[in-house]
């Protein structure tokens, strides 16, 4: 009976409304946090940072943002890649225009810029719904990528069209550039993700979260109980884009250090993040993390297994990888359309009864 609620009486509405009302959940989260903050930085090296941890953190943040829009507010978006690009290019312009600006401020401002852009591209959501909206958000994807390609000002008239992050320090530690230490980069990104995960959780469990969900579940009824559709949808677009923008900023500044827009922020990124949200679990903060972890690790494992384990040539392995990813995704959607978060929920229910399975 690992997960036992019995004996944990909730004596007030306050306790009842806590983020983790069950004690065991609080323990799990505490252990995860200690490991992530204290243990991982001690052992982490270059490969793990750049191939696993940073991608995971960046995509978890992006997935969190997209989940707010799709999972909580019910508006499908395929523009994630484009919005990440806004974050990245905003971060680049801000760092190069104001070399003295603190990196944290740069990233937060990039998020704000992206939020603004997100609101503009969210405007059609007032008139169109569902897949019509999804297709409309592709406009954002293609337009933004085109913009950052064509307008040289965005990449400071660089001949290659690529943007490169100069070295920046936070509290005397180098966070960006080739000389930055893996553990520092990791901790920097991790702090962002922790703070924003808490913020997301706070938002979705309060008035604003209910407002979004009411629009998602039944927009007409929501409006008749006083929810303003315009306000709700645009606020979801804004918050979601803010997250995605910061994720794009982190991707460029801390993880890759350099980016070329068509390569780094193409439509495949939009799909990747959407998959993370769906496989993780729509409308679940935890799910965003699980989905990101799953889709970051899966290709690495597949590739290592095929190239390293079976000795398949990398080109063929690439095709097999794509095929396998496709098969896995379909399989997953058939078996558990509610995502990994639901699986975790079910496991917890089982553990609650364990070892007496009745």
């Amino acid at each position, binding site marked *: 009976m690992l997960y036992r609620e019995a004996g944990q009486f909730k004596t007030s509405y306050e306790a009842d409304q806590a983020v983790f009302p069950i004690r065991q959940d609080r323990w799990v989260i505490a252990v995860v946090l200690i490991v992530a903050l204290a243990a991982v930085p001690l052992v982490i090296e270059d490969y793990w940072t750049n191939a696993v941890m940073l991608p995971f953190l960046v995509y978890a943040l992006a997935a969190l943002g997209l989940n707010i829009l*799709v999972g909580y507010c019910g508006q*499908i978006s395929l523009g994630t890649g484009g919005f990440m690009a806004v974050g990245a290019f905003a971060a680049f312009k801000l760092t190069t225009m104001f070399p003295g600006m603190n990196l944290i401020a740069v990233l937060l401002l990039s998020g704000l810029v992206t939020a603004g852009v997100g609101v503009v591209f969210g405007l*059609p959501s007032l*008139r*169109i719904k*569902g*897949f*019509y909206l*999804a*297709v*409309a958000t*592709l*406009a954002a994807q*293609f*337009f933004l*990528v*085109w913009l950052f*390609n*064509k*307008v040289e000002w965005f990449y400071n008239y660089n001949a290659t069209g690529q943007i490169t992050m100069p070295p920046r320090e936070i509290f005397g530690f180098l966070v960006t550039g080739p000389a930055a230490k893996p553990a520092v980069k990791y901790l920097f990104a991790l702090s962002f993700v922790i703070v924003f995960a808490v913020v997301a959780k706070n938002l979705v469990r309060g008035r604003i979260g209910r407002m979004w969900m009411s629009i998602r579940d039944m927009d*007409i*009824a929501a409006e*008749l109980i006083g929810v303003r559709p315009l306000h709700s949808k645009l606020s979801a677009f804004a918050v979601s884009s803010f997250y995605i923008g910061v994720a794009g900023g982190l991707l460029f500044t801390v993880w890759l250090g350099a980016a070329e827009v068509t390569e780094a922020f193409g*439509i495949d990124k939009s*799909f990747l993040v*959407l*998959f993370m949200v*769906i496989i993780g679990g*729509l409308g679940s903060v935890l799910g965003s993390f699980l989905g990101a972890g799953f889709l970051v690790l899966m290709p690495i494992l597949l590739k290592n297994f095929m190239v390293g384990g079976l000795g398949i040539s990398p080109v*063929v392995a690439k*095709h*097999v*990888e*794509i*095929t*396998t*990813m*496709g*098969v*896995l*995704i*379909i399989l997953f*959607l*058939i078996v558990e*359309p509610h995502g990994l978060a639901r699986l975790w929920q079910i496991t917890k229910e089982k553990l609650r009864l364990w070892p007496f399975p009745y």
Partner: protein
Amino acid sequence: MGDFTFFLETTISGLMTGVMYSLVALGFVLIFKASGIFNFAQGVMCLFAALTLVGLMEKFGLPAWLAIIATIGVMIVLAWLIERFVLQYMVSQSPIILFMATIGLAYVLEGVGDLMWGSDVKLLDIGLPQGASDWMLDNFNIYVEKLELVAGVVAAAMVAVLAVFFQKTRIGRALRAVADDHQAALSVGISLRTIWVIVWSVAGIVALVTGIMWGSKSGVQFSLSLIALKALPVLILGGFTSIPGAIVGGLIIGVGEKWAEIYVGSLVGGAIENWFAYVLALMFLLVRPQGLFGEKIIERV
């Protein structure tokens, strides 16, 4: 006068591209109408069909006509496989899950196509006429590719055949019934599963036709699957469920895009064809939210 000729040539060329978009959009509409699935794999299906066709001709030396028939067979088998291994298990899922599944399907088709036939650019030559049409040059002094004329004619024929299929045949009527009401379809005596196989087969054949036309023009390669992305605005414009919408929408987008490319694109540095169609479709929606042929719906509670 030269300006006008140029304008005409642009328009015709736009129409021809538009026909292509119409075909792809038609593939989307067929499946969406019959099963409510937004089939993102439609573009990759074009690529897959074209790859299969080229592969059969190159590797097995089949003559074009035989290869086309064989590819039709492959597309039907594919439809059956998709129903058997994917759709069957997803009947009651929400639309977004089905949509994501078709993206998964797109990955699979892309991977399998490349694994089987290689990912290098291939020429597709089934003997369609190439070069400029002398007849158009002589009579109207306009430069038009023969291939584009053929594509236009084939697409028109395709649409006509589909129209007859949907209006006149028993299966076609069942398909239309299923779009409105699943029970009605059952009363026609065809199971839902069969209908899905048929619809996906038809969409597969439409994909093959698109693949042949586009592949003959620009070779068969991954980018072929991207025309699906360019055909999507057609769906906002014409509606996800309207066949006439897909056709007219495709033409509007094709022409609008060409005009924009030439008269606007040059002002802003070019290459706007990737997003212009979307903006066009969105602007249109602002004026007419119900799309081209949709009726104004007032929601109820």
